């Protein structure tokens, strides 16, 4: 097999796949290595996604769409439900396994070379410290591949960037260890996205039930890492949550995963390497959503890599431009989300219930985010500045 490539992408999640797709479209040679046995499997995600997140790059295919949804229901620790519906919000539960399977095929059709069971175990460095290529374990055989640019899209583990000397280690407070079941015998009213808050169920995080298909949902939770202990892990929290809210489910899938809820990495490039998606800590730290940011950063990293291949002397400038663009579109926003998260998750169940009662006094059709947050701010005035920043994008 060919050993020299324009670009090597490590990791075949949304970030890596969109990077490879973009690069292949431009006619550059690209190798994507993924450790897993099958593209898209296992899904480590609650799969909620906005229609525009994908539609702005390519039309959403029917088989990618689980259930469509227009509303959220927030369930308070005392069990009361707050409905927030917004006809303008058009979201769906993404069948991520099928989505990634198809995106890999699309990138492949354009000329990208995709390899599965190809575990990148190390970087190969040039004398100047830049990446010469990668060492890949393919079914027990170690092979080397070389490229002008390496894109680290290796997800929450984010080891490839570390090999380049970028510290991606997450502190306990900056990760949410999660567990999720996909289960049937669940009927979610109006296909709403259910979010459960409460320190009993999910300290420093939340539990969710998202409609996946008829009678079927992704039900899971994440706790903040600082509450994880050797006595009680996320799985015990999920057992308790299911026993309370969904005792009659029948489970078809059980998955685990870590969601980074930190600030986006400040350093997203070094020498000839770019970092995209979860590996660059681009998940929204407040709600844990990361698909859209992975896709956006994958496309941008792909474009930067193409440009760098065409003008190798300007690589530093091109990559710094990528870093700035990510900060502008993702990193900066997540700074205020991060502060909101830290304040919101300091509240206790009584705070949540009290704020909830205030919100319930507002009639359903008038429950705008602005009105809701003005109630929250009444209880926690220190949130005001960050909330304004988060919703105005300043």
């Amino acid at each position, binding site marked *: 097999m060919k050993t020299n490539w324009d670009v090597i992408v490590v990791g075949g999640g949304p970030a890596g796949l969109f990077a490879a797709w973009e690069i292949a479209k431009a006619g550059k040679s690209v190798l994507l290595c993924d*450790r*897993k*046995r099958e593209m898209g499997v*296992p899904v*480590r995600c609650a799969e909620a996604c906005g229609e525009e997140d994908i539609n702005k790059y390519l039309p959403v295919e029917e088989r990618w769409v689980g259930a469509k949804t227009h509303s959220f229901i927030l369930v308070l620790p005392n069990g009361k439900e707050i409905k927030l519906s917004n006809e303008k919000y058009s979201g769906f539960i993404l069948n991520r396994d099928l989505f990634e399977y198809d995106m890999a095929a699309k990138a492949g059709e354009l000329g990208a070379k995709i390899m599965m*069971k190809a*575990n990148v*175990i190390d970087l190969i460095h040039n004398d100047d410290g830049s990446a010469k290529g990668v060492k890949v*374990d393919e079914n027990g055989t170690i092979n080397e591949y070389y490229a002008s640019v390496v894109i680290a899209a290796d*997800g*929450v*583990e*984010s*080891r490839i960037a*570390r090999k380049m000397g970028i510290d*991606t*280690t*997450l*502190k*306990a407070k900056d*990760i949410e*260890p*999660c*567990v999720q079941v996909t289960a049937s015998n669940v009927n979610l009213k109006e296909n709403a996205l259910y979010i459960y808050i409460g320190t009993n169920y999910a300290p420093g995080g939340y539990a969710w039930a998202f409609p996946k298909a008829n009678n079927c949902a992704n039900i899971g939770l994440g706790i903040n*890492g600082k509450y*994880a*202990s*050797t006595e009680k*892990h*996320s*799985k015990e929290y999920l057992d308790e949550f299911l026993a309370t809210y969904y005792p009659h489910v029948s489970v078809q899938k059980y*998955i*685990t*995963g*870590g969601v*980074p809820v930190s600030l986006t990495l400040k350093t997203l490039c070094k020498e000839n390497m770019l970092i995209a998606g979860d590996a660059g800590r681009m998940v929204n730290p407040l709600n844990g959503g990361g698909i859209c940011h992975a896709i956006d950063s994958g496309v941008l990293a792909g474009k930067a890599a193409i440009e760098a291949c065409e003008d190798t002397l300007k690589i530093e400038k091109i990559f710094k431009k990528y870093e700035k663009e990510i900060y502008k579109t993702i990193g900066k926003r997540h700074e205020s989300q991060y502060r909101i998260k830290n304040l919101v998750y300091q509240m206790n169940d009584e705070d949540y219930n009290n704020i909830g009662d205030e919100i319930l006094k507002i009639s359903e059709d008038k429950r705008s985010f602005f009105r809701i947050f003005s109630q929250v701010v009444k209880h926690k005035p220190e949130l005001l500045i960050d909330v304004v920043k988060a919703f105005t994008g300043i």
Partner: protein
Amino acid sequence: MIIPLQHCDQCGTCIAVCPADALMLSEFKVIVDHEACTECGICVKMCPIAALEVKNED
């Protein structure tokens, strides 16, 4: 010594928090580099399904 257990799901949460970069995934399991590992135990706590344990060496 940190020991990965059979029910590990290879989700990578432990790797993300390892300050010593002593963990990596193979296709079916997480592998511990015992020389690099400082036995700080953060991976044991963070694992969503308690698939790592600390074993005392005798």
